[in-house]
């Protein structure tokens, strides 16, 4: 048996990375026996839901769900959770990328801002630093990023509004080291369509950060943020699996 046949179940459950997935799909085309087993297993998977005992829906569930779907259709959700869902590309906006250390070296204001934002001490951060006038930063939608299974990293993201500009701030830690040209890439999503929003390499402690400024289009209602590991910087569409994500 070809070793690639062993990937059949991880393929079905969506657990292969992009390269492994492509390799396995090529394998399926070339090995009829594996293709037959795959189709047989997919058929079984489509029938197993009927092995569920009928459960009576909760009182008023229909009204709640339909009202919520129509009223706030983007408050829940996952980024690209289904297999085989294509993600359309978008024009790349300008990106400012910084490493964690450089970020902190920018000074008291930036460092304090990040610390306050991601400790979620306040949604309105009032900063005063020597030689500067008072500046108010409003942090909108501070979200903790959810790690995919098997990934131990953590992260937080937030939009920061000053008087005239909006930026995206992303901090991550406990990240796995990268190899070669690999980078961690931040994506902003609107209706499932990703736009690149900066990439970074973690420092020796596994921490990294991105400030994405200015935002490409103030009118876009970004509904999610995600981080992938990409084989090289500059990708306009994701090649790697999502490692951290959440909706705003």
């Amino acid at each position, binding site marked *: 048996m070809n070793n690639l046949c062993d990937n059949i179940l991880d393929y079905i459950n969506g657990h292969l990375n992009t390269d492994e997935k492509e390799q396995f799909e090529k394998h399926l085309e070339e090995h009829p026996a594996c293709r037959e087993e795959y189709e047989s297993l997919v058929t079984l998977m489509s029938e197993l839901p009927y092995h569920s005992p009928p459960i009576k829906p909760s009182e008023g569930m229909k009204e709640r769900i339909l009202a919520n*779907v129509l009223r706030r259709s983007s408050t829940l959700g996952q980024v690209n959770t289904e297999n085989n869902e294509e993600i359309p590309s978008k024009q790349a906006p300008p990106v400012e990328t910084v490493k964690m250390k450089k970020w902190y070296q920018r000074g008291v204001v930036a460092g304090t801002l990040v610390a306050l934002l991601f400790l979620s001490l306040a949604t309105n951060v009032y900063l005063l630093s020597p030689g500067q006038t008072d500046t108010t930063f409003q942090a909108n939608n501070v979200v903790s990023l*959810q790690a995919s*299974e098997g990934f131990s990293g953590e992260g937080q993201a937030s939009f920061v509004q000053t008087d005239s500009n909006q930026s995206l701030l992303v901090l991550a830690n406990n990240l796995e080291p990268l190899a070669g040209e690999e980078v961690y890439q931040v994506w902003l999503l609107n209706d499932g369509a990703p736009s690149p929003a900066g990439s970074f390499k973690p420092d020796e402690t596994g921490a990294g950060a991105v400030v994405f400024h200015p935002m490409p289009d103030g009118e876009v209602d970004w509904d999610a943020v995600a981080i992938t590991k990409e084989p090289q910087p500059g990708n306009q569409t994701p090649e790697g699996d999502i490692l951290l994500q959440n909706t705003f």
Partner: protein
Amino acid sequence: MRDESALEKLYDQYERLLYSFAFRITKSKALSEEVLQEVFIKLWEGRAVYCKSKGSFSSWLLTVTRFTAIDLLRKNMKQVPTEDYVFENSPSEENIERDVEWRETGSQLWNAVGTLSDEQKEIVELFYYQGLTQRKIAEVCSMPLGTVKGRLRLALNHLKKALDNERGVRG
């Protein structure tokens, strides 16, 4: 243009099946409701788009429900207490045809699953209903990864054959 009445019709048609399947995975009514809401948000927003190449609509919708339930289960694993099953024996009046298919396929599946060993049932549960990677299953079951891969495929192929036999006997 999105049609609210079509959304409601679709909801009525699949509510009980999707909710029961979500409950089978999450073992929580609250989380199952969240799963259904998320599934219908995806449909409404066009984030989950069906095309014929993905098989029948109901199979595809159940797959979307499965991945959504597993995702939400994983996120809420520490907070959600499991609840006992609450069976509903009376069929719904609106979807007699779907209920018949459910009961018939379900009955065949119960018999086929009954031919699996306890170990095979557990490994299928972890793979299918909890969506664990084979590597994670190996950790949970304290087995070498190669053993898990072999036993899981064997269990699923055994289940498929048992289901085919069940249909052969009945057909």
